[in-house]
């Protein structure tokens, strides 16, 4: 798995994100402040187990750690932005005034009054000094909020609901009494997994052109989860820099054990093999209906990808394309044509395949095999690349929605899947912008209405900012989820009144 990809210094392009920290260290973070050795050991395995896979987050860790170790002067030059985002006063204001704790609580609690769904839920905090605190739990949203304001975590993660309160786990006589019961089914799509096919950016950087990969992936995965698995409550969240997370919140999804989570991940996973392996798509024919449908979604994007990414412009990448084609004579003819036309664009190269095939450069061309190979290529260059390990484990932790990405300052906002094409990661508000929004609003209000509106409902700070549409979207999502939860609960109560 491609780990510890550090932000690339040499990147260019108008839309590139501010570089978090060019000096960022490659070293795996060792973050053990304030823990007993035993605890530290546990948390180090836990690190490997639980969140080794979230590349976006690993970057955060290494970059934020590097930031805290770099001399001030370096930061002043290169990391001025990122230093601002992790400023304690900014984080305090963010947790105090902007983070939608109430909806987060309802989301995880599945009912308005506190239950063990929330109370036994594990939270893990990454503190400003990079200590990693696992097994935090809170009886109410207020107490979670309080601890956030007090500790100012650079982010926190959400884990499973346990059989007992995670804070009590050490007082239990039997270790088996402490076990994860349920958690949302989660997915992680990260741009790192696209590095071998994207040409516009590298490492932690993204632009509109490569974000198209994430958009396509969201469409395909979301459709499959709904149409095939019948899930309804799927929350897509921007991971803050170069990827997206999905939280499938249906009760049926939350109750899946590891073998069933693995089944969903396996069903959706298509590309096998690492960076250097040859053919990544090996499918039996006819194609499974899920692949067939995904192909219908992806086909439209394929020509865009050829246009914007130009993935076969360079010789070695074009050679990879040739290696995926079945006919030796055809391959030879293509190689000849491309050798004599350096700089030929990918779209033209793709068209050359059919053109030369029709020109009968090969005597024994198997046109069916060629067609199938071309479909495999379309899939290799468009089909979602999931970080499947994240999805397979019930006890895997994932960064909470609405956290601030320490490298970019952007808030991990929900993505409206109905309008996924319109989502622009580069327009997602940063924490500093949001605080400015509040100031601006208060200022305007002072100028305008001047002390009136006493009978009005108090306006929340997030409503004064461009975070508003995202919080509202989240609120609507949560209320739809709760509606279904109530229905399920009623059904169960009716069915078996003696059970309780």
């Amino acid at each position, binding site marked *: 798995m491609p780990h510890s990809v550090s932000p690339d210094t040499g990147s260019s392009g108008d839309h590139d994100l501010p570089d978090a920290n060019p000096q960022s260290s490659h070293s795996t973070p060792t973050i053990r402040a304030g823990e007993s050795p035993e605890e530290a050991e546990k948390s180090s395995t836990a690190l490997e187990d639980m969140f080794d896979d979230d590349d976006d987050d690993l970057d955060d860790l290494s970059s934020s750690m590097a930031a805290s170790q770099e001399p001030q002067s370096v930061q002043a030059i290169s990391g001025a932005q990122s230093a601002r985002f992790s400023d304690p006063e900014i984080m305090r204001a963010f947790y105090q005034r902007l983070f939608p704790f109430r909806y987060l609580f309802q989301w995880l609690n599945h009912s308005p009054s506190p239950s063990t769904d929330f109370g036994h839920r594990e939270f893990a905090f990454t503190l400003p000094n990079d200590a990693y605190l696992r097994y935090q739990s809170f009886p109410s949203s207020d107490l979670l909020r309080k601890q956030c304001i007090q500790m100012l975590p650079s982010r926190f993660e959400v884990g499973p609901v346990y059989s007992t309160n995670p804070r009590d786990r050490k007082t239990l006589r*039997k270790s*088996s009494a402490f*076990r994860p019961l349920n958690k949302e089914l989660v997915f992680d799509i990260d741009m790192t997994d696209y590095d071998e096919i994207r040409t516009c950016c590298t490492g932690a950087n993204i632009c509109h052109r490569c974000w198209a990969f994430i958009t396509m992936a969201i469409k395909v995965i979301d459709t499959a989860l709904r*149409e*095939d*698995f*019948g*899930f309804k409550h799927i929350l897509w969240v921007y991971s803050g820099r170069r990827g997206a997370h999905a939280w499938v919140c249906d009760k*049926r999804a939350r109750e*899946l054990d590891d*073998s*069933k989570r*693995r*089944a*969903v*991940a*396996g*069903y959706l996973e298509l590309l096998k093999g690492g960076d250097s392996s040859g053919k990544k798509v090996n499918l*039996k*024919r*006819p*194609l*499974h*209906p*899920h*692949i*067939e449908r995904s192909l219908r979604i992806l086909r439209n994007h394929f020509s865009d990808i050829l246009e914007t990414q130009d993935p076969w412009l360079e010789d070695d990448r074009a050679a990879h394309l040739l290696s995926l084609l079945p006919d030796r004579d055809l391959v030879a003819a293509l190689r000849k044509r491309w050798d004599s036309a350096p700089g030929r664009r990918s779209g033209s190269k793709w068209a050359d395949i059919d053109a030369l095939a029709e020109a009968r450069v090969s005597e024994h061309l198997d046109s069916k095999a060629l067609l199938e190979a071309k479909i495999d290529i379309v899939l290799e260059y468009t089909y979602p690349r999931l970080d499947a390990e994240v999805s397979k484990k019930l006890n895997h932790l994932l960064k909470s929605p609405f956290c601030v990405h320490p490298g970019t300052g952007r808030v991990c906002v929900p993505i409206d899947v109905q309008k996924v094409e319109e989502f622009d990661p580069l327009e997602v508000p940063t924490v500093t912008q949001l605080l400015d929004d509040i100031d601006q609003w208060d200022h305007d209000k002072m100028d305008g209405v001047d002390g009136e509106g006493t009978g009005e409902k108090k306006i929340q700070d997030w409503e004064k900012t461009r975070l508003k549409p995202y919080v509202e979207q989240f609120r609507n999502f949560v209320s739809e989820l709760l509606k279904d939860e109530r229905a399920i609960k009623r059904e169960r109560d009716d069915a078996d009144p003696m059970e309780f």
Partner: protein
Amino acid sequence: MIRQDFNRIDAKRRSNLDPKKKQFAQPAFQHHDYQHRLNFYVLPPTAEITLEEFEEWAINRLKVLSELESCTFRNRTPDETASYMAPILSKYLALHSNSSRSSMLQEERKQDHYSHFILRLAFSSTEDLRRRFSRLESMLFRLRWKEDDARERREFVDSLDLRWEKVGDEEKRELASELAAVTYKTRQSDDDGWFKVEWEQVPELVESRRVLLKRGVAYVPAREQMSLVMAEFTRRLDAAMELTARALPRLDEDDRLTPILKHLSASFISPASTYDSNSALPGTLQPHANNIPQLAQHFPACMGQLQTRLARDHHLKHFARLQYTLFLKGIGLSLQDCIVFWRRSFSLMTDEKFEKEYKYNIRHVYGDVGGDSNRRGKGYSAYSCQKILTEPLPSAGQAHGCPYRTFSIDNLLESLRSMGVHDREVLKTIREDVGRQRYHIACNRVFEYQHKAELDGKPGQEIPGLKETIVHPNDYFKKSFLLKHWGDKEVREGADAGGPLKMEE
């Protein structure tokens, strides 16, 4: 005679009744008539069996499950597992089809039935054990399902009363092309049956996209029926185990069973073996005081390293001596030779000190001194892997134990290299085994690597239990030695006959 009323433990709605009363409420002697070879183990056994049967049947089944588990540890393919397990199954848990007309049918099925329920009791206590048991029983069921006669299998399925919804003709027509794609056929043939189930029931079919999914419903082709049956088997077993676990405390009533059950679950935690000293060698090749260093090439790492340490330090501490002496006794070293061996090895020690402090212990181990029971029992028996693996870890300066468990990984790999294991793949897998605490699997892997040529070759294949997993250091020695010397007629005949091999003082 003993009667174990499994009903009491299994039936949910009765769990709040006074168990004593219940015993009278039900006729206790019911003999099952086993119509099918396969069994979903829904009904608990009710007839009486002897304590000996109780233990023996359970141990036999345990042997089978342990071997199955070792197959999964070694990533054997289903086919490899099937052929590996075939002789083990026929030896410990034979189950013939109806068509075989075997006179043993009912008896075999009874043992299968009872042993399943006994182990269910033994393994209900912790969630970890339950999970392992359920996984292995499901594997065993699958293995038998696959080799079952097709007609008998169908009759068995019909008897199960499984409520799977059949896909109607109209719906089949509507979905024709999609259904065909799932079975990777270009066209669907008319008689292909399909079932509808919740997708969670067939996770493995979902994972490999061998079903059609529509809004949470999986359309399963009839030929994937095994997955459905398997899912049902596992689901029912898990539910029953859960109930058994809750009722388990009441089992303490019968204190004759508790130790047996405890022992059974303990041997599941680490490999158990009852080693009979048949491992000793025939006359001319018998070990004596002078040839132990030569024989050490056949020792497993736990004993080989003791020999190395002894040769280097001219001394071993108490537990190491005990472990090694018992092993040497097990391979047939006589008491007299054993004393001579130790005397020579402790070359820096005075005769007086040896006589006074060490000799007695050796004699004690051999049953030459000590109380009546020690003499009658001919001393202690050699340690099994289970025993060695469950002992407390050695402290500094102590050398006993299983090196796969006690050595740091670097030291372990180093000592394996000195045993001639250089293959990087093998070392890598061993590293993984050890990381997962599958110490005996790692040891077996070393054995297989060292005897690859002989194991693949023709001669020696008839060595009893050759391909079964080694769970006793003496067994390791015996197999290694026999493989090397199979050409020797005396060795061969000794091993075949079994009995005469045993060397007694």
